[in-house]
């Protein structure tokens, strides 16, 4: 089999892969290649034709394709090699990749690899919703693709299960395209999407959001969805008998969570965090396998693409350093732990102590709280937050810290 050698291979040409590639090149890596499975670069941004991207990075409200274009232009200006319509079949921990593309299967041996494969949507199968399995049940992202890129309309009377951001965006989108979006149902007592999306996508269009409510039965005996039965749930998310209501609809969109796509990472023996479902990484975005880095939604699901780009740039710069031996592997590592009301913290380990940013999500919504970062029992940072919500990531910048005499960092909400 044909084998090529490259310093850096970036798996995925979405927002994470693009920003990582640009940063790696700027940091001095000249032999790098992006492997993209789609026909064009940009990843999921290509189907996100709504605005609101880039508010942090460019101080502008761009559409997804516009945001992507700025990075894609830079990638081409910098002459970074891109292989489109190619999929990575296997990845070994020795950083050998087997790649399949039209007319060819080849191997690439890399000095460093950046995982930037993004995430996928949870499906109906994973939810075990009882009932029929008719046509008319789609994940919200798939419908976003069909409507925005393929000019295909899935249905006219729509219910949405789950208040994740894509579901909210699609509630507005389908309304604008003439569909009747009857309601959004969310099993949790609070929304899973950003507040701004609740306002701009539901409230502005009088689409009701029913919290603590889920779909308990699907009716479609003749092949196409005819309606769903919804019910209120108790605090353990069990449906409450007697609260069932039947809602006629021909389409059910699911926006019930995103799962980082770590199939390749697992093949390469990368340790996966049970909570994030992404790799366990250090403050250089490096996984437990030397030379394999991870960033973006494959590492943990982000709320805003701006943060993906930022994190990926860090991964790219560090990968470039690793290749030239400027990222010495330190023997000492600090374990970062989630404390009270914190679901997870990324990175899970700190080894270098330079320009540290901790990203985390809280487990419940709350107001007027203190975020505390404690190192071996000693408070090293305290920040006030007016509002904390599981749908929104929280970032704490620690800057440079001396890691030599500490063993743990704990982030908690008090």
């Amino acid at each position, binding site marked *: *089999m044909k084998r090529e050698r490259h310093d850096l291979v970036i798996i995925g040409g979405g927002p994470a892969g693009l920003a990582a590639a640009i940063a790696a090149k700027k940091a001095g890596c000249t032999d790098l290649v992006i492997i993209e*499975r789609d026909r064009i670069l940009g990843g999921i941004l290509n189907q996100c034709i709504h605005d609101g991207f880039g508010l942090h990075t460019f101080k502008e409200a761009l559409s997804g394709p516009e945001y992507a274009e700025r990075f894609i232009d830079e990638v081409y200006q910098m002459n970074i090699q891109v292989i489109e*319509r190619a*999929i990575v*079949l296997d990845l070994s921990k020795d950083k050998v990749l*087997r790649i*399949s*593309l*039209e*007319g*060819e*299967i080849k191997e690439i041996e890399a000095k460093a690899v950046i995982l930037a494969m993004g995430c*996928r*949507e949870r*499906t*109906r*199968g*994973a939810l*075990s919703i*009882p*009932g*029929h*399995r*008719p*046509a*008319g049940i789609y*994940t919200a*992202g*798939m419908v976003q*693709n*069909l*409507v925005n*890129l*393929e*000019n*295909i*309309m*899935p*249905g*006219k009377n729509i219910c949405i299960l789950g208040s994740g951001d894509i579901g909210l965006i699609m509630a507005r989108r389908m309304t604008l*395209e003439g569909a009747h979006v009857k309601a959004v149902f969310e099993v949790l007592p609070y929304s899973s999407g950003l507040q701004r999306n609740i306002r701009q996508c539901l409230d502005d269009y009088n689409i009701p959001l029913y919290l603590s409510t889920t779909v*308990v039965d699907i009716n479609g*005996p*003749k*092949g*196409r969805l005819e309606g769903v039965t919804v019910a209120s749930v108790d605090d353990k998310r069990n449906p409450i008998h007697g609260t069932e209501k039947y809602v006629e609809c*021909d389409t059910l969109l699911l926006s019930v969570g995103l*799962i980082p796509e770590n*199939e390749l990472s697992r093949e390469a023996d990368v340790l996966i965090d049970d909570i994030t479902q992404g790799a366990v990484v250090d403050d250089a975005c490096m996984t437990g396998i030397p030379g394999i880095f991870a960033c973006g939604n494959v590492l943990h699901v982000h709320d805003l693409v701006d943060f993906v780009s930022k994190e990926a740039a860090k991964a790219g710069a560090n990968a470039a350093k690793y290749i030239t031996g400027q990222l010495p592997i330190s023997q000492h590592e600090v374990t970062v732990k989630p404390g009270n009301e914190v679901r997870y913290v990324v990175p899970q380990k700190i080894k270098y102590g330079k320009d540290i940013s901790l990203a985390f999500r809280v487990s419940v919504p709350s107001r007027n709280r203190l975020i505390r970062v404690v190192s071996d029992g000693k408070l090293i940072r305290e920040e006030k937050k007016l509002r904390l919500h599981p749908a929104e990531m929280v970032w704490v910048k620690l800057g440079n810290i001396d890691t030599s005499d500490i063993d743990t960092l704990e982030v908690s909400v008090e």
Partner: protein
Amino acid sequence: MNNLNYDVVIIGGGVVGNAIARGLSRYELSVAVVEKEPDVGLETSCRNSGVLHSGIQYKAGTLRAKLAVRGNEIMGPICSELKVKMNRIGKLTTAFYDDDLAGIDRLMAQGIANGVPGLKVLNNDEMQKIQPGAEGIRSVWSPSSGIISPYALTIAFAENACTNGTKYFLNTKVTSMTKNPSGIFSIVTNKGQFKSKIVINSAGLSSGNISSMLGVYNGNHGESLKIWPCRGEYYVVDKRLNGYVKTLLYQVVGVKSAGIGVHLTPTVDGNILIGPTATYISVEGPEDYKVTSDKLADLRSEGRKLLPTIEMRDFIRNFAGNRPKRTTPDEGGTADFVIEEANNVSGFINLVGIESPGLTASPAIAEMVRDIVAQHIELEEKKNFIAERAGFAGHFCDLQPEEQERLVKENPEYGEVFCRCEKITKKEIRDAIENNLGARTLVSIKYRARSGMGRCQGGFCTPRIIRMLRDEYGFQPEEYLLRESGSHLFCGNVREGDAKQ
């Protein structure tokens, strides 16, 4: 419509109807298969555990015993001719209590009487070598048991029959039948009237109704031919746990042991099935494939008991299949197959109550039906019968890297992966779309190519397949079907114009 005169009309394109069609396609006969759905095998044939039974568990002397043993015996060469994945992983039927050891002896005696090859009684040490961690005190080991892809077999029979001249009429529903005084059958369908010398009723869940169209309500021995649909629900478990279940694990029917209940069945593609449950459903809706919250909860807890490493995220899909039973809900249990030419309607061959082991028995049933047909029409072998299907069993991703590399050079579309989870290539999708039956639903493609059967459940490949059907096969949004007639996926374009790029 054109000339719809045939020597033989087969009603129902399930695994049995297709096996019969393929068997008859060896001879100089004109044969039509009429199937009410947009593809073959959409009912019971593709909604089951995919087990190749040895024939051990059926009462000696029954058709089920005889045909399962014979079907099992000839399945090997058939699978290699037709490129169907099959794996004889064997089966342990286990006694867990001393009180049930008599059941082991009974089962052995029955298996030997049925002519099942290779049977052995194993103690727990010997069981451990086959399935590490196996519990129970003694087992009957039947090495000819195995697993088979039910879709691959059903479709392969049909496509090979079609290659050899059998005509398939999909979306064609029989509404009434008469036998003319001249001895010719008239079969009225929504697509026109067929005429034939022989009618074969292999309509599965509808076989009772089809039989009653000719006034045949009872079998030749007076037994009722009414079908009582009995639903079995299943979970599909993620491939992450591939390899944990090495063989088929059943309990012996005994004093304390529960008998054949919910169990784990590995599939030829590396998933594990948990199921089936058994619930009789309304005879008015034999094709209602609902899953229910109670049964799903039972399956999850049973699954966890049998395979403790299962996590919630491993349940990637659920489904249901309905058994065409002849036993009433009050009777329970299983009646024997009815396979016979109706005493009072010469030329009408009835196959009623073909539930398990119908998949295993299907090629043996085909032999039996061929012999009945031969009593009416002299069978002359075709000189140009094509027994082999082209290609390879299973999928591109199952092949060795060298073979993959060779095929990609030969056909570049093997290099383009359409289904990320199962690594199914564009060439395989194209082959599925271009099947000779003309079946083009999304499920037709899924059952042939395996696209969408992985953990993302079509999230990645579905838009790609939809685009390909539009750009390369001219599909309009209204034409896409998920599965059965009526399962329209889309209502139209978002706006006028063409999104083709």
